């Protein structure tokens, strides 16, 4: 892997983000549902709407508005929230770290659980263990987050057990214990569907590796099964597993919106729903861009990790 490769990949990420800014702008500008009308409510007079449009700069041609917006982003100025009368950067910045704490907790636990589960299912293919993992993964992959969240709330946060708080947030800096007890249910909700999906993908990658010629060759050398699995099979199924996880980060970033809303987690998702309800355009645009950037960068990161794991890619 060379510096040139990294530079090319970074350029590609920038290109992707450029397309994202354009798409976000198109959705928020071209689709019906005028922001000025939304802000003033349906009782706003025509003059008031026109005045609001002027104030927001919505009366200018779209490309001027776009260039203005992009210029702001490049200067680090994301604009002013229409509803909260605060700089967007401050509002989104706080929410970002809250979301990150939830997403990272969830992703780390998913990785730790899903990969061994998938590997186990592939090794024990056709046994009861495989079947149980398979059934679990189908159920997990078919439950929308709001259903999982609601069921978890009923059983673990309800009056009967009351093991965890039903919602809210304590920052880890403030109290690690408080953070932990609050993060369990939302992280579990996000994690269920990802664990289901990733373990199934890892199972199929691992099964493919186990049926390859070089695994057969390793077995015919008389190597013990433990070495065949650990030294020959696992390293070859890790790179595909990383690729699957990086793709699923996109899913995680979508799921986090619903989960934060249900568990009153003050992150980007909850902020987004608030902004959508209030047509707070600058906030909506900023959040979408942040989530897309995180996704694009995590894909880049996973490509780098894959290059480290797989010698064939490393020198390509």
């Amino acid at each position, binding site marked *: 892997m060379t510096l040139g490769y990294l530079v*090319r990949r970074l*350029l*590609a990420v920038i290109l992707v983000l450029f397309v994202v800014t354009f798409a976000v702008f198109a959705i928020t500008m071209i689709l019906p549902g005028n922001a000025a009308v939304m802000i003033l409510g349906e009782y706003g007079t025509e003059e008031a709407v026109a005045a609001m449009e002027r104030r927001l700069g919505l009366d200018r041609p779209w490309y001027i508005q776009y260039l203005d917006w992009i210029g702001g982003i490049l200067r680090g100025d994301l604009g002013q929230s229409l509803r909260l009368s605060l700089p967007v950067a401050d509002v989104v910045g706080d929410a970002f770290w809250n979301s990150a704490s939830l997403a990272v907790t969830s992703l780390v636990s998913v990785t730790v659980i899903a990969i061994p589960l998938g590997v186990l299912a592939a090794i024990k293919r056709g046994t009861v263990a495989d079947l149980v993992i398979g059934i679990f993964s189908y159920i997990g992959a078919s439950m929308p987050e709001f259903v999982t969240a609601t069921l978890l709330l009923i059983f673990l946060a309800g009056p009967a057990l009351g093991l965890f708080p039903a919602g809210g947030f304590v920052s880890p800096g403030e109290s690690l214990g408080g953070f932990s007890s609050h993060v369990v249910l939302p992280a579990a909700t996000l994690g269920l569907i990802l664990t289901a999906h990733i373990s199934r993908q890892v199972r199929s990658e691992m099964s493919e590796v186990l049926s*390859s*010629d*070089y*695994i*057969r*060759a*390793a*077995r*015919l*050398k*008389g*190597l*013990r099964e433990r*070495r065949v699995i650990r*030294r*020959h099979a696992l*390293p*070859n199924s890790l790179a595909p597993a990383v690729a699957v996880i990086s793709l699923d980060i996109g899913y995680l970033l979508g799921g986090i919106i619903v989960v934060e809303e249900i568990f009153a987690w003050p992150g980007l998702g909850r902020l987004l729903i608030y902004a959508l309800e209030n047509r707070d355009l600058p906030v909506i645009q900023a959040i979408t861009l942040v989530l897309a950037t995180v996704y694009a960068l995590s894909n880049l990161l996973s490509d780098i990790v894959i290059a480290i*794991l*797989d*010698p*064939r890619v490393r*020198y390509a």
Partner: protein
Amino acid sequence: MAGGNARGADSVTPVLEVSGYSLSYATPSGPVHALKNVDLRVTHGQTHGLVGESGSGKSSLAWAILRYLPENAIENDGRLLLSGENLRDRTHPQILEIRGRRISMVFQDPSTSLNPAMRLGEQLSEVLIRHRGLSLQEALEESEAALARTGIAKPGDMLRRYPHEASGGEKQRVVIATAFACNPELIVFDEPTTALDIITAQQILELFNQLQDETSISALYISHDLGLVSRVADVVSVINSGEIVESGPCAEVFRTPRNDYTKALLDAVPNPKQWLGVKEPPSEAPALMSAKGVTVEYGRQSLLGQLLAPKPTHLGAQEVSIEVRKGELVGLVGESGSGKSTMGKVLSGLQDFDGVVRFGDRDFARLAQIDRAYRRAVQIVFQHPDASLNPRQRVREILSRPLKLYDIVPREQRAERIARLLEQVRLPPEFADRLPHQLSGGEKQRVAIARAFAAEPELVICDEITASLDVSVQASVAELLVSLQRQTGTACLFITHDLNLVRQLAHRICVMQHGRLMDAFHRDDAEGPDRNPYTRALLKAVPPPASQAA
């Protein structure tokens, strides 16, 4: 018990003795028989060749000996004895001690049988650590020595490489060194040269013979290639549909085969001395097609692409000139990556090029100029019978397409013409209603040939059309092509890696290497003194089988 010492203690006991062994696989539609009552002996220091076509059960026997059978395998009570011990009585842990130490294996394709994520050194030394209890350091030192014996120039350097950093021949040497590492009693070679290029395969074969002389190892050498087996084996067994039909000393079986199947197999092996082709057109016959200075550059990018992800370009063909006269068959020979298929693509209008292709009295200087008239006159048949027919079209539809496209016959005569085409490629008329998956490999290739000839072309390009077929089928497809040529007078460019085959068919032969035309000669001059060194190396690498050499 310690198996390693049993060897040599009793030179009468064969190293491997298979007796009365049968194997079948349970499938939902009943058992499928793979091996029937097989008897086979490999004595000390002997190389036993096992020859059969695909599906003959030859690989099943290898898996059975190594006790590596799928769960649906059903065995009878036949015996598999290694130096007198019945392998079938051994527990799984005991088998693990035997594999790699007392029996080892060399596989067909080194690019899939080596682990892509492990250095070659680790893959070689791990058997020494496992079976001889060496430390990592000792194992690596011994690996280096073992690799040196296989003729690798810088073995220490090779040990540090990953498989993708080594050539096919180097990788197969590592696999062979691994198989010899623990000095086993028996090595099973499963088509060890099939995936390699001609000259590399020849070098691996020489290496095998050299190691065999040095170590007097006992080997079971499995192959579909009779000619090749005749050069390594002392004893040969021919297997057909799971049964050993003939067995005996190599020279004897090849010179005086008793079984009909063996005879048919031997007859099917291409013999350069036996001319099959059509009569040569007179030397003053005008050129039908001539390519002049054709160059193909792969990986050419747009300006934007060069900026974002510049990749090096490489030349698929460089200043290649080839001429085919009316009614002639020209052989185009080369190893993989030589550019022979690139030329096939250029001439069939699938690949852009620089240079000039002259057809009849018209010149074409790039892909965009290739027109319908050219495309009708030049047809192509591809290598893979499984991929060359649209799986969703019936044979009737496949064959009617060129008829319709070029308006060869009026609509009402199409059915009749299709029947005639099928007859010409010796397929029954009811095959018109079949889908490709209902045909065998050879039958598919016949349909593909019929499709090419349906257009009534003047030149047919055959790109490795026999390479994916079994030996016996290869011969009949080649023979079919010649008979069609005789009937229609169509010229042919026959692209192949098989020199023996092409010398039976072609009037003139062109040799390519690394995208360049190295040599072009009349078939009578194939062994002449003015041949290019590369041509000579190719010819030397594929001597005709023992039976024909006489």
